[in-house]
């Protein structure tokens, strides 16, 4: 039994104690696109729910379609990035060899396996008549549910690791990812002109998304910084800068969205800022995690805070 007090000043030549991720830019891009896709599909499903009334349906048709397109493109291209990042891309289907609830990545593979085809099926069939239309409706709800999972599971994915920043802020990471997903979806939608009431749907969705993203980011940083060495990357280096940029852009996007003007320019600006902010956020999270992995003191301090009784 090791009864020695933990000492973060003792390291092995300053070498990392754990390994950083082997992931490249593919993965943050997947967070971004997959997240947007997921949030969009949820919104689409919500519109399905609210559109038993044919008039309403017609009003929201364009918005619905756009959501479905974001769902299809985001989950497909996101899937491509995911496969590209694999060491053996030809073996991507092996993810579905097992159903393993302990592994967020395995769960994510299943989620994507339902969400992506679901999105495609929805897009293809939802406005058809008859059996296909019914199929489209069902897949719309299915992709809505799986879309919500898609938007949030990646938060679990990164937190279920040993990288100190991610592990330490695990309680708020899924919330952050979901919020960012909603912001991204809304921001993309804001690049297009919309009539009422679609515009109000997007606006509401996007505003809440931005607020959640901003608040959750603050909480993530706060949780991580409760341990000095763990939180250090937020305050220095390139990842820290990126994180601050993300915050700034998202806040700017939120402010712009509050402006009373109804011009297309303002809408597009808000959308661009939001999209950029979320993109920066995804990359910032990725690089911050790696930065915390490279510092052995972060791991040591993290573990000295983690009390054995708390683990399940």
């Amino acid at each position: 039994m090791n009864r020695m007090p933990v000492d973060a000043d003792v390291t092995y030549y300053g070498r990392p104690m754990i390994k950083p991720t082997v992931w490249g830019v593919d993965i943050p891009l997947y967070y971004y696109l997959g997240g947007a896709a997921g949030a969009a599909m949820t919104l689409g499903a919500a519109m399905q729910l609210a559109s038993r009334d044919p008039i309403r349906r017609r009003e929201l048709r364009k918005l619905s379609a756009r959501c479905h397109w974001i769902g299809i493109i985001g989950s497909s291209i996101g899937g491509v990035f995911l496969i590209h990042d694999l060491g053996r891309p030809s073996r991507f289907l092996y993810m579905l060899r097992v159903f393993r609830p302990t592994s967020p990545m395995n769960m994510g593979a299943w989620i994507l396996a339902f969400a992506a085809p679901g999105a495609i099926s929805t897009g293809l069939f939802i406005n058809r008549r008859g059996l296909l239309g019914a199929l489209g409706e069902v897949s719309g709800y299915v992709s809505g549910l799986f879309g919500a999972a898609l938007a949030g599971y990646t938060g679990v994915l990164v937190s279920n690791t040993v990288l100190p920043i991610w592990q330490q802020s695990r309680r708020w990471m899924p919330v952050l990812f979901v919020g960012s997903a909603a912001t991204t979806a809304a921001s993309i939608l804001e690049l297009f002109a919309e009539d009422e009431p679609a515009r109000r749907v997007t606006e509401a969705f996007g505003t809440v998304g931005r607020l959640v993203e901003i608040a959750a980011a603050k909480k993530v940083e706060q949780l991580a910084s409760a341990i000095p060495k763990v939180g250090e990357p937020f305050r220095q280096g390139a990842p820290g800068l990126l994180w601050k940029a993300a915050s700034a852009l998202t806040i700017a996007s939120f402010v712009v969205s509050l402006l009373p003007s109804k011009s297309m320019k303002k809408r597009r600006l808000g959308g661009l800022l939001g999209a950029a902010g979320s993109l920066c956020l995804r990359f910032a999270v990725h690089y911050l995690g790696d930065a915390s992995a490279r510092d052995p003191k972060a791991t040591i301090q993290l573990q000295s805070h983690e009390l054995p009784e708390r683990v399940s």
Partner: protein
Amino acid sequence: MASTLSAGEATALEVRAGRDDTVNRSSRKGFFTDTTICIGCKACEVACKQWNQLPDDGFVFTGMSYDNTGALGASTWRHVAFIERPVALSTQDGGAFSWLFSSDVCKHCARAGCLESCPTGAIVRTEFDSVFVQPDICNGCGYCVMNCPFGVIDRRESDGRAWKCTLCYDRLKEDMEPACAKACPTDSIKFGDLEVLRETARARVERLHENGMHEAYLYGADAADQPGTEGLNAFFLLVDKPEAYNLPPRPVVPTKLVKETWTSFAFAALGLVTVAIGSVFAARR
């Protein structure tokens, strides 16, 4: 007895000797690495590389004492750490200095982070209770790399798959001990039944304490010792803090903490659905 042995006879003799050395009470196998008798010769590193035909990891002079290997990785499955300290060992008269050696290896944890996070099921628990990556299934997603609290497993970029110590699974199946244990000249690396190793280790610590080496202790010997991993099948006898050896002081398998994250996810996903529905309905007027 013939004056020389044929290859078959020699192997049979080795197998018999190996079997007689361990009592097969259980099938849980592991390593007990007693760092107090390690002489830092790196025979374990070379034997492992040779048996598994691993590629070299580059020729880099690190300036870290005699450790130019650096860390475990996809192509290095045994790594000897060298620690020069400005304090003496309590049993040594050599001035205020000591030099510690420790041969690091995959811990084959009882709760293995890599295994629990592997999405393809490539990483499995063998009949010897070791953790094994099936190279014909691994698709190189790299998630295991981020789930090892000890920084052991890694993805080999030239090959795409994740690799780590196999506890010489192929040798175990032939009743032989792992290459590193066989090569270790001082038996610092002891291989055998986990229960026997634990008894041996505890007796060794007691003996060392009696002889005045009070710094000696076991690292990861069982679940009580290391609840975060529930015990290591490859555990150690150390004489300094784990951090000094680049070992995590209180490692935790991430899956032990994941419940609250999934809970958070559930709320977040639910929240997303609610907000989506709310946005649609709120925009009615």
